[in-house]
């Protein structure tokens, strides 16, 4: 079988050394009544046949070219430098475990420390953790932090938070007996005000007002942010948010049908002890050399067990590494360039789409960055037509929001070149 190592002689020699005649003598503790003869699965295949099968499955999917993808809704096509895969495909990174032995894991630990710093810099907050599963669970974990910190049992969600993030927040909150309320008015029961900037539709909210309102009520302000937009937009730290969370997929990760991506979370210094998950800090050896270790483990499940800040153990380290490579490759100038290009193209597209008969911006008075909601006549038919032409059109959000009939969000990034946008418009005009 493909990934086994022993020859029959090896097995015999090992059994002999143990001093038992057969495998069965090692399985004595398993009641006979539980034994099964074999698994109800096909026999194994050669690598060649395996890959033929897998490739056949992949071939049953339709991949829309990056440049003709205008659908976002939390997952975006962006230029991913070859450097990212070149780093994450290094076996020394991807086949290592969580760095429990720091001396033999400095590569991973330093990379995470750099990731924490990059996220802290991007969000303008003091400390970020090593990663969370995704943007949705990041929002939920942040809510838990606020709940513990304030001792209050309600969180207020303002505006169009990603509907799936909302569902996950509800699931986590149920577990902890926390009430999730939609609205903008926090009160004395409110642990946190949660808002997304830009929101699920791509629209900008007023983060300062929301943050102030939260603080006025003695609640925390939790901002769910788009990491690339932060090259343009005021970072949470600047408007006083206590916790920033978000989804890092845009930072060098492929769509991959929704995962694995990476959630990030950062907060003010005062809240660090409430942070979920891994945190890497600096330590020194006897010679005074700087090294990196897992820090503040007393927050975590393996030490605190039921009193831990979270149950998370395995997180999304390799995705965080990809994001680090991406952010380091871009640097401040590159990230700004990517954000600006996306901004300019999205606004140019919005302008052209608005001129289509019957089409209009759903919220003309609102600002956006590179994703925006259009009111589209016969939206489903339009999207089907685009698909036939090989274009993945915008996202029909009516599926989640009854009030938004015919509203479709379009997104533009540096991968949607001028010709791609012309093609899109041409099909819509035809």
């Amino acid at each position: 079988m493909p990934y086994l190592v022993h020859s029959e002689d090896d097995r015999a020699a090992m059994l002999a050394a143990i001093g038992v005649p057969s495998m069965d003598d090692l399985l004595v503790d398993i009641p006979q009544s539980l034994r099964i003869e074999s698994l109800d699965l096909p026999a194994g295949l050669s690598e060649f046949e395996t890959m033929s099968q897998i490739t056949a499955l992949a071939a049953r999917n339709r991949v829309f070219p990056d440049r003709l993808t205008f659908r976002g809704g939390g997952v975006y096509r962006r230029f991913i430098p070859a450097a990212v895969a070149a780093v994450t495909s290094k076996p020394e990174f991807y086949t290592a475990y969580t760095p429990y032995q720091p001396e033999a894991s400095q590569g991973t630990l330093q990379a995470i420390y750099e990731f924490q710093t990059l996220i802290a810099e991007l969000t303008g907050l003091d400390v970020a953790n090593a990663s969370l599963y995704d943007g949705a669970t990041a929002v939920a974990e942040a809510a838990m932090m606020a709940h513990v910190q304030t001792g209050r049992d309600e969180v207020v969600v303002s505006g169009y938070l990603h509907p799936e993030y909302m569902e996950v927040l509800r699931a986590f909150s149920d577990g902890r007996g926390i009430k999730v309320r939609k609205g903008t008015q926090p009160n004395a029961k409110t642990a946190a005000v949660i808002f997304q900037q830009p929101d699920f539709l791509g629209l900008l909210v007023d983060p300062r007002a929301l943050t102030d309102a939260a603080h006025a009520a003695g609640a925390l302000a939790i901002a769910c942010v788009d990491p690339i937009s932060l090259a343009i937009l005021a970072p949470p730290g600047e408007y006083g948010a206590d916790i920033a969370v978000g989804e890092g997929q845009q930072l060098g990760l492929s769509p991959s049908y929704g995962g694995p991506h990476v959630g990030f979370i950062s907060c003010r210094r005062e809240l660090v002890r409430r942070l979920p998950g891994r945190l890497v800090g600096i330590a020194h050896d006897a010679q005074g050399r700087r090294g990196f270790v897992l820090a503040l483990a007393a927050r975590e499940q393996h030490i605190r067990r039921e009193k831990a800040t979270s149950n998370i153990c395995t997180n999304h380290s390799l995705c965080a590494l990809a994001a680090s490579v991406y952010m380091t490759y871009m640097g401040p100038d590159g990230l700004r360039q990517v954000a600006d290009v996306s901004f300019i193209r999205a606004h140019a597209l919005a302008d052209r789409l608005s001129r289509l008969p019957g089409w209009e911006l759903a919220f003309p008075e609102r600002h956006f960055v590179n994703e925006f909601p259009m009111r589209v006549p016969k939206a489903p038919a339009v999207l089907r037509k685009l698909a036939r032409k090989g274009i993945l059109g915008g996202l029909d959000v009516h599926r989640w929001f009854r009030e938004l009939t015919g509203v479709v969000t379009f997104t533009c990034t540096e991968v949607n070149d001028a010709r791609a946008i012309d093609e899109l418009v041409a099909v819509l005009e035809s």
Partner: protein
Amino acid sequence: MTELLSFEKSRKGAHPPRLPDAEMAGPEPAQALPPEQLRLTPPGLPQLSEPEIMRHYSRLASMNYSISKQFYPLGSCTMKYNPVVNEAAAALPGFAGLHPYQDEDTVQGALELMWRLEQALCAVVGVDRVTLQPAAGAHGEWTALRMINAFHHSRGDARTEVLVPDSAHGTNPASAALNGFHVVEVKSGRDGRMSLADLESKLSPRVAALMLTNPNTLGLFERQILDIAEMVHATGAMLYYDGANLNAFMGICRPGDMGFDAVHMNLHKTFTTPHGGGGPGAGPVGVKSELVPFLPTPTVERTNGHLRLDFKRPKSIGRVRSFYGNFGMLVRAYTYIVAMGGDGLKQASHDAVLGANYLQNQVKGDLEMPHEGPCMHEFVASAHNLAHDGVKALDIAKALLDRDFYAPTVYFPLVVPEAIMVEPTETESKATLDAFATAIKEIVAQAKTDPQSLHDAPKNLPIGRLDEVAAARRINTYLQGQSEDPVLRWKSPEK
């Protein structure tokens, strides 16, 4: 060898990447947005050229131990060979390029793969349905407990306690607590198995579930699992299986047959998806019929060849994460299962148990073995016998690093003093196991002759043993606002 931080190498204007231009007229952010929305100062990302960046990460990589280069006997973590073909499979554009909000008819292959993987996992653990949504084991535990909670509530039976063995992994009590359950610990008996007497005393109508891993974290099979299941079910509670140790008996027996009602699996352990230095993994949860209605949405349904996502599940606990799970990891795990097949998985578990018993046998003269008899896929030894030499499990761990082995899990499970938990897995050759046993012998001998040399280990690594106590102290001062040292993130000296 040490490596500066990227931030420390940064230089203003060091070759930034070339990137596309807008290619069209449109407003600049500064023109189009109200000033209060704009960022005032650019984020402090490092400025480095591509060659420097690649050199940086290549050097960092070489400072890691990994299963690709070292034996990684990390108990409870199942560090087995990660097949390289799995990476090729996950990277196929037909998978990696899919947007999660594409229409169903454009992702039939992806849905088919998820459906087939669900079927395969059902077959391996003996359950009726599996959700692929959870991102890791702990996430799976939490998801399962949500379902169990919902199940009890659906019957108007609000239960408040979850039982967890004292040998359980930390995520078990943590996942229970996050579901609002009160955690009650069940003691292990002298034989390293759960004490039925203690279980008896803890069971009550308040108990929602017992969380168990089998073989338990001592590597011992809970012989009386059927009695345990009966006792638990008798009180109307449910039995939860922590699947971290599934590698012990694939094709030999099934948690479902043991009476477990819910089961999580770590695809990043048993099913060879790489650990990535701490994830991403995948923690699917399998359930018996009575829990099926409560599975997270969406589920993947197959009706005469056509696949669809089912969102209409009134009793569902809802979503536990965005989209459909760590799809890339699901592709890897499925690829592994196809290549191994039923016969391969069974042989894998046989070899895992064989290897653990062989290695246990090779070192039993050197370390204490707190428990009699054969182990399953892993065993827990104790360095207690070296206490009078002043040598601790941690010293042995570090000395192993110096000999180019990763260290076993130490100080877990908590029920064994100076625990050294060894899981060799089926993908390590006899030669490697022998070399490891020899290293243990040398180290134990050294403990008698020169214990100090063990306290000084590791010597052959990029850095020596790190002073975590001093580190914690600095972090505390920082958290108390009494210092600005860059302990948890780098800070530019200028700032």
